């Protein structure tokens, strides 16, 4: 049960120790004290361990995460979980812009609000935000699911590929080629699984959500647009 106090140990030492953990490590439960908004805490971890961070973190916390569970007991700066591959990142406070950007897998949970560009260019990650999200979220989202309990800002899902978006609250506006789509049983099922994974089964009703996805007119070649090429 290593405890690392960032008031005494450098961030570089912490991240080196975490990045050296192998698949069979016995040091599976880490606590980080006094994070004080430092950037890139617990970035690049590739081991099945749990890292609890006692306070607010700066940019790119848990970036590139593989396998690890990262719990942030505070707010997270820009790009939390950016490009994560697998594992779980759970932010107990709010997340700044570009949360889960380009993520390829795993689950990112934000208890509070996220901000602009949440899930930008997501490529397989699942994101559950219990508050609202800002403008240009899921921009060019390729795959994965984004679930939002609150409201969404302007230009949701602009230039969207195949990421699936579920929003319970009002949406300020849809981006180019993003449309509302029918909620079928398969969607209610996957939405329920994500709500359950975020610990809210029974508290949030899937029927209150709307589904948004790609109209598929922008990324498929259209002969009528040949003059533009």
């Amino acid at each position, binding site marked *: 049960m290593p405890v690392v106090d960032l008031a005494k140990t450098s961030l570089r030492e912490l991240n080196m120790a975490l990045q050296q953990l192998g698949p069979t490590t016995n040091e599976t439960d880490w606590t980080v004290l006094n994070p*004080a*908004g*430092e950037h890139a805490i617990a970035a690049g971890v590739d081991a099945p361990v749990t890292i609890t961070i006692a306070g*607010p973190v*700066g*940019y790119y916390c848990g970036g590139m995460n593989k396998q690890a569970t990262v719990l942030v007991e505070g*707010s997270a*700066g*820009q790009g939390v979980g950016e490009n994560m591959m697998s594992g779980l990142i759970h932010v107990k406070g*709010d997340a*700044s*812009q570009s949360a889960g950007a380009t993520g390829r897998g795993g689950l990112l949970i934000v208890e509070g*609000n996220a*901000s*602009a560009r949440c899930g930008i260019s997501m490529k397989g990650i699942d994101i559950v935000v219990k508050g609202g999200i*800002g*403008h*240009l979220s899921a921009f060019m989202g390729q795959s994965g699911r984004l679930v939002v309990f609150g409201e969404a*800002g*302007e230009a949701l899902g602009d230039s969207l590929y195949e990421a699936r978006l579920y929003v319970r609250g009002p949406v300020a506006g849809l981006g180019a080629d993003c449309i509302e789509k029918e909620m079928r049983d398969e969607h209610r099922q996957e939405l329920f699984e994500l709500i359950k994974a975020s610990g809210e089964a029974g508290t949030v009703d899937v029927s209150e959500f709307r589904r948004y996805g790609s109209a598929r007119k922008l990324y498929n070649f259209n002969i009528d647009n040949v003059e533009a090429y």
Partner: protein
Amino acid sequence: MCGIAGLFIKDPTLEPDLGRLLALMTSTLRGRGPDSAGFAIYGDATPGLVKLTFAAPEGTEPEALAARLLSALGVGGIAAIRHSHAVVTLPAEDVARAEAWLAEHAPEASIMSAGNRLEIYKDVGDPDDVAAAFAIAQMGGSHGISHTRMATESAVTTDGAHPFSTGAEQCLVHNGSISNHASLRRALRQDGIRIRTENDSEVAAGYLTRKMRDGESLDEALTSSLKDLDGFFTFVVGTESGFSVLRDPIACKPAVMAETERYVAFASEFKSLTVLPDIASARVWEPKPATVYFWEHS
């Protein structure tokens, strides 16, 4: 990069802590811009008197320059010295004379600000060293803004540091880059706005000064800037009684705000807000793009 911070105090019992809190907030942003720093503080006012703040040319004593200025004007004002800067308190009608005297007799002195309440201090070097040199932590006031600079558009000099003041009692800090600053600067200078440097952010300050001179309110001027400024920006702007925040329509640059019963605070990063009292119970949010946020003392 660059780091910006602002603190607008609502509870007067917190006013003595303005400088201390702003210096702490700025210190946490050092990594965003270590080459220079500056602070604008709105402190006490004496009716009818204006504070003219200027930096003495390098290698000269601000005290001696302030004494020469006051003696030349023959008005018996008061001079306070902070590190390389002098604050000369003058009758309002003598400010233009004082500026003219400085331009003629000490052309290398830099006028930082003029206003009933505003004082601006800025210098090159580590932001913590700059704050300590000017004893910012000992200053009280109702609101203030600060900047840590990573120079991109103009040289690392005291004049290139923020905040910029292009009109009485007005100041601005900027994180971003403005592309059409050269043409705007020419137009503003032709229109009588004094812009002293080649810095893009000073042009933004001058733009707002012109709009307000021509009758717009601060929030109207900021709304106009969304149309006329080409580039990306987060601005924090101070006036005698007001405090305002604006991000460009894409919201390229980071910004986070907090509000409690006692204050409104702005910073480039959340960690800067963690030094404030009761931040755990504050309302914290990221300002929306192309949206003017404005607070004012009554």
